[in-house]
């Protein structure tokens, strides 16, 4: 049994955030994942981001499907409501919950099996609806919990522990999301908390579907040579092309980076994300350019990471539903039930 690797930070671990909570308050129960599992690092990053953003724990809804990755919501923000649903169907749960109670913070955690196999249809449609939530795909190229079968993100040629070789082309979640019109697309690596934390924060702030694909090695079944989801491969091939740097009220996080030449993208809540434009003319708001850029990098065996695309203005699901500004769950019954008089008028049409 492994404890969550605590976020490596400079200041005393009992520092409190704006609402007086310490990082501990954002932890959950003890992880039961394998020692060194990439998912635990992502859990730590979520804890860090939630703490850093002063989220009220009980206003957070954590959702997941089934898998090692989907177990992780138990390991962060213990005081948040959690829903470990069924395999591959978390997006529909989130969509319904979000429509009825939009002003909670929705954090969905899934795996590549959960999202790209049994759940691919729901993932595509939650992207299309632009449901306002953070969706983290903890991508290890295998089905961890069922002991190492290939997932749809496994690369051609990778060998499974039992020796079989995968022959099917992988589905790239980032390209899929871009193609389906996702309004926030990012990729990172479980081992790179410095990059991951601000991305998660930006994703939570984004008003719409924030899709974050995190390469997260499975040390039990997919952390060996030949797998692009291994620690080694990822470390070697990381092309931290685009780094997101979230300008927050608090100084400590920003200080973790040097500014460098940057381009501002306003987020709806007023905060802003700056891009380090490693490639010239990189435009995080031009879907086609981003798509072409990612394809090009991957053709060179690189994994572009960072906040790759964002469209802060697209209407999200609740906007398109056209529901009242209040949470539907807060509308009093009196305003929902038309009452006996209106009934008379209605029935008139049936006499």
């Amino acid at each position, binding site marked *: 049994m492994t404890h969550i690797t605590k976020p490596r930070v400079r200041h005393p671990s009992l520092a409190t955030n704006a609402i007086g909570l310490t990082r501990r308050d954002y932890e959950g129960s003890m992880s039961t994942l394998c020692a060194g599992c990439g998912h635990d690092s992502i859990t730590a990053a979520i804890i860090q981001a939630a703490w850093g953003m002063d989220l009220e724990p009980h206003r957070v809804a954590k959702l997941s499907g089934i898998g090692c990755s989907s177990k992780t919501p138990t390991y962060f923000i213990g005081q948040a409501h959690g829903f470990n649903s069924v395999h591959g169907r978390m997006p529909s*749960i989130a969509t319904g919950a979000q429509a009825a109670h939009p002003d909670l913070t929705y954090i969905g955690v899934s795996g590549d099996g959960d999202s790209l196999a049994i759940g691919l249809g729901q993932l595509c449609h939650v992207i299309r609806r632009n449901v306002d939530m953070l969706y983290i795909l903890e991508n290890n190229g295998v089905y961890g919990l069922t002991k190492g079968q290939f997932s749809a993100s496994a690369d051609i040629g990778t060998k499974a522990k039992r020796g079989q070789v995968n022959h099917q082309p992988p589905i790239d979640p980032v390209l899929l999301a871009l193609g389906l019109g996702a309004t926030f697309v990012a990729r990172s690596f479980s081992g790179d908390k410095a990059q991951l934390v601000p991305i998660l924060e930006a994703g939570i702030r984004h008003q719409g579907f924030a899709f974050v694909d995190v390469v997260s090695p499975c040390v039990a079944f997919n952390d060996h040579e030949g797998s692009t989801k291994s620690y080694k491969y990822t470390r070697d091939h990381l092309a931290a092309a685009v780094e997101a740097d979230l300008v927050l009220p608090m100084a400590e996080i920003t200080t973790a980076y040097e500014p460098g030449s940057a381009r501002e993208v306003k987020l709806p809540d007023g905060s802003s994300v700056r891009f380090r434009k490693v490639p010239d003319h990189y435009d995080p708001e031009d879907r086609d350019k981003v798509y072409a850029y990612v394809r090009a990098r991957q053709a060179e065996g690189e994994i572009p990471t960072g906040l790759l695309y964002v469209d802060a203005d697209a209407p999200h699901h609740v906007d398109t539903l056209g529901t009242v500004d209040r949470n539907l769950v807060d509308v009093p019954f009196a305003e*929902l039930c038309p009452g006996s008089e209106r009934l008379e008028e209605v*029935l008139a049409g049936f006499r």
Partner: protein
Amino acid sequence: MSNPGAAPGGGKAAGVNDFALKIATANGTGSASANGLLMKTIFRMGIPVSGKNLFPSNIQGLPTWYEIRVSGEGHTARRAEFDLMVAMNPATYAQDVREVRPGGWVLHDSTWPLPDELQRDDVTFLEVPLARLCNERFDGARARILLKNIAYSGVLAALLDMDLEVVDALLEETYGRKKALLDSNFEAVRIGYDYAKEHFDCPLPFRLEPMDETGDHILMDGNTAAALGCVYAGATVAAWYPITPSTSLIDAFSGFCGELRKDPESGKSRVAVIQAEDELAAIGMVIGASWVGARSFTATSGPGISLMSEFIGLAYYAEIPAVIFDIQRTGPSTGMPTRTQQGDVMMVAYASHGDTRHIALFPAHPGECFDMAVAAFDLAERYQTPVFVVSDLDIGMNDWVVPEIRWDDAYQPDRGKVLSAGELEGMEKFYRYLDADGDGVAARTVPGTHPKGAFFTRGSGHDRFGRYTEDSDAYQDVVDRLDRKVGGSVERLPKPEVRMAGGTGANPAAIGLVTLGGCRAAVLETQARLGERGLAADVMRIKAFPFGPEVVEFLLAHDRLFVVEQNRDAQLRSLLALETEFPLARMTPVLSYGGMPLSAKEVIEAVERTMTAKPATSIEEAAPRRRRKRA
């Protein structure tokens, strides 16, 4: 009127206000408005009437029929025998002419003369060159096709002694603003009416005579009524995927919400209607919305329930409310999408893998669709579990004359045990699955209420504290409570409708007729007819699952029991035996599953057939497979 309602009312002289006619047209030719006009005219004349729309799984061109039954006594079941056939579709002339009862009448469009081989000398043919007449008076294919239908309504008005003022009034209401349309409709009616008066001696021996039996009634289909019930129950999220015959429920819901749920200031909506990508997503959205505390529902049919099975098990085990309308159609598989059946009874009772058991309500007509829709939300929240409202195509899509829907403004939704921020504040610690009150129902919280209210919802093994577990005792503790909880719901479920032949409180008759859903109409008619022949039969109509003690009492009180239902495998009968331990051998199945609404004729024949045969009650006779008798 009596049915649905009080006991059968005063019968009329045979023929008057007691006949059935059938209209044969082609799909997509717009006969719906004409048929609706006829139904509503009769309804407004105060006469109990029922209509059955037999349409194909197709959008245009295939044969379609509309059956209208007029019954002063108030019998709304399908009448298998037809006194008058309106044969407008040459493609089905042969079959249509065959279906008229000896001595009956055939009205047909003589623009296309009947082939001689179809002539019958035991029926009277009424020839009206409808197409020709309309083509002479109206321009444009569209107008000609549509008004031809109105024209046959005119003929029928004359033949059946309809109140033309009522007809005109209805046309006014429909086309009031559209003057041109209105005039052409008026004219079309007259074309048919005058032609009939001129060429036939009107009215026919069977005809209409104004009554006062529909005053406090409405003419509505079950899906519309169910949708209205969802509006009044305060449902705020509907997630669905289109499937016949449930689609019109959501259409009606959206329609009603357009007016009834619009926020006056912002013009925005107080409801979210989400067309999901499939049924798995639809039920997932419902569960998600219910999880955060909204009243949420979906409507589907058999194939959808199959697809929802996994999620239904999650809602049962994780204890999340969900209201599911199953508008049954003929199965298995895709089956006959536009035909009715009661083939999902067993499935809804035990849907999903593992040990599960679900609450189900069985409306018998649109009026109950409204009431049970409201009840379903109360029950789902009270017991934190999926609740099925099991309707079917006949109830859901056909127009029924039912007592007007009433609403008590004192109604407050039963949210069940949902802890408020205040209650949580006062608590030492909240544990999700504690059976504090001993009724098997644990208090729940909704996200965002209060820091103390947070818990983890999961479909995997959990203990009474809501913690993940793989421990046998901790697991059993929870599933045993679930069983008590659902069993305990009986106290709040609607009791069966019992109609003793001798009147309420009378001693049991020898025969007991047990049924559910839309079969009610035919079974009550059967009770009346058998009574006339001196065969006293009591009726029990199941309204809910799990069954209450009244169900057992009725079964025990009758020697000869018939279970009347619309499926092949006698599913209600099976459920009764399983859940009450009453012996199967003592319940004779009466089964009708060809996809048509049930007629009393089928039931009466089955009962009489069996009453002349000797009952098989001894276990020793038990065959190694289900013994069934079909209607």
